[in-house]
């Protein structure tokens, strides 16, 4: 009985930790889904640009010893600029209906950013400052890590701000209008390119925050984090339903909890294998994800 109780606490604890860390996946998933919702295209370079934002902010930390708040802001801004550049290079000038070309261009973007980071850091990991890593709260038999809680709250605030912008501002109105009916949006006086570039930049802001969050939670930044983050972001987007923001949030937290409990039982080596298996299960049994489409083109 005691053994069972101990096991139960350990398992739920690891699920809980995973869900908190899953907020980074949720943010990355929201970014993917936002761009997909706006253009009907996947920007595969998105998570790489997010990590590049985190790297840029690390430079600020190393050079000026800036406080963590500044690091997060710099990471967000750099990733937003990179997001805009990715739009310009991989989407802006490719014919609207050529989905494959845009996809391949963004795959190219992913590898290009990855190469630049590997080159600049010689491939070795760098320490990233974490916040509240000493803090630890005990709630009954459970313990809550301060740094994970911090990451979770940043994710919550970012999502709240995004939803406000999307549903309560002029910019958000234009973003949704262009996503739902682009011809009518133009007739209303909205510029497709302006709206799309803003969407990429806003998604980049979220990505930069998520990149810094990931690095802060893990304590390091390494080029080997780029591909898994990209893949998990895409998995979260698919599981949540392409174009669905609530879907991305729930799927992000779910994947976070799932991978942590898998890690508890099977170890870190097998973790990502099961996460990818989860993707296949969804693609077969629920190909539209949890929420189907809510902000896509009709």
């Amino acid at each position, binding site marked *: 009985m005691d053994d069972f109780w101990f096991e139960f606490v350990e398992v739920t604890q690891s699920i809980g930790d995973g869900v908190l860390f899953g907020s980074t996946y949720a943010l990355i998933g929201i970014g993917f889904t936002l761009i997909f919702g706006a253009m009907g295209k996947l920007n595969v370079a998105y998570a790489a640009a997010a990590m590049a934002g985190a790297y840029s902010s690390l430079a600020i930390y190393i050079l000026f010893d800036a406080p963590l708040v500044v690091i997060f802001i710099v990471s967000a801004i750099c990733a937003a600029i990179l997001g805009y550049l990715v739009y310009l290079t991989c989407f802006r000038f490719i014919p609207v209906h050529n989905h494959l070309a845009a996809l391949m261009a963004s795959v190219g973007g992913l590898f290009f950013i990855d190469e630049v980071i590997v080159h600049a850091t010689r491939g070795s990991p760098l320490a990233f400052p974490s916040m509240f890593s000493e803090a630890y709260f005990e709630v009954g038999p459970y313990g809550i890590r301060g740094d994970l809680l911090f990451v979770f709250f940043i994710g919550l605030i970012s999502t709240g701000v995004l939803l406000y912008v999307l549903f309560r501002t*002029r910019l958000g*109105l*234009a973003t*949704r*209008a262009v996503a*739902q*009916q682009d*011809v*009518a*949006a*133009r*007739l*209303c*006086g*909205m*510029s497709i390119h302006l709206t799309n570039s803003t969407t990429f930049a806003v998604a980049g802001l979220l990505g930069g925050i998520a990149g810094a969050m990931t690095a802060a939670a893990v304590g390091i930044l390494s080029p080997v984090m780029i591909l898994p983050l990209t893949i998990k972001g895409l998995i979260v987007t698919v599981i949540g339903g392409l174009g669905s923001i609530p879907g991305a949030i729930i799927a992000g937290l779910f994947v976070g909890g799932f991978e942590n409990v898998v890690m508890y039982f099977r170890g870190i080596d097998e973790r990502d294998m099961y996460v990818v298996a989860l993707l296949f299960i969804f693609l077969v049994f629920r190909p539209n994800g949890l929420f189907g489409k*809510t*902000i896509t083109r*009709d």
Partner: protein
Amino acid sequence: MLKVDNIVTRYGTIEALKGLSLEACEGEVTCLLGPNGAGKTTTLFTIAGILKAHSGSITFEKDNLTNLSAPGIVRKGVALVPENRLIFPQMSVEENLVAGAFARPRKDSPAIDADLEGIYERFPRLKERSTQPGGTLSGGEQQMLAIGRALMARPKIMMMDEPSLGLAPIIVEEIFDIIRLLNKEGVSILLVEQNARMALKVAHRVYLLEGGKVTFNGNPQEMQQDEVIQRAYLGAGSV
């Protein structure tokens, strides 16, 4: 007021408009008739800046619209109620209307609020459904919404592409009443219609489009007197 001069518009290599000219005069209802595929929608899309003319020119009042983008053209006072309405399906009725005023400057917002109330007075059914997603409205309601959305831009000329398409006769009557009323209020109208009989009742001037060109232009009486046209578009002998 609105002058289209010898425009050529292409889809890839297909020439949809082959040197089309027409003019819509201030305060009038100008009607564009023609068979399917004649290029009516293409004409309106080219004027609205959704498509680019390959050659030719479009002028509105003193302004050259030819090289303006769609947002620039709405700002000049030219609005389009598109074929099939193109409502924003997941946005509420009210958001659809507010989106229509997007091109107006922010400082206009008291006037925009007043215009929104005006639209609700004109279309009480839209007010009842103001929080409902646009995509859930009936065809007739969606057409009212599309008209309301275009009116929110405060156009000087409103182009309408087959506003009666797929609607019950009683709703069609309603739509044409609205067109008459708007015109009386001083909005010039460029109307594309398949329903020639109804269109001729409101039109001051009629253009017939065939194969991307204007093949007839005159007033409704002249059109009804033309035997060939009468047989093709109005049904022989019965007007």
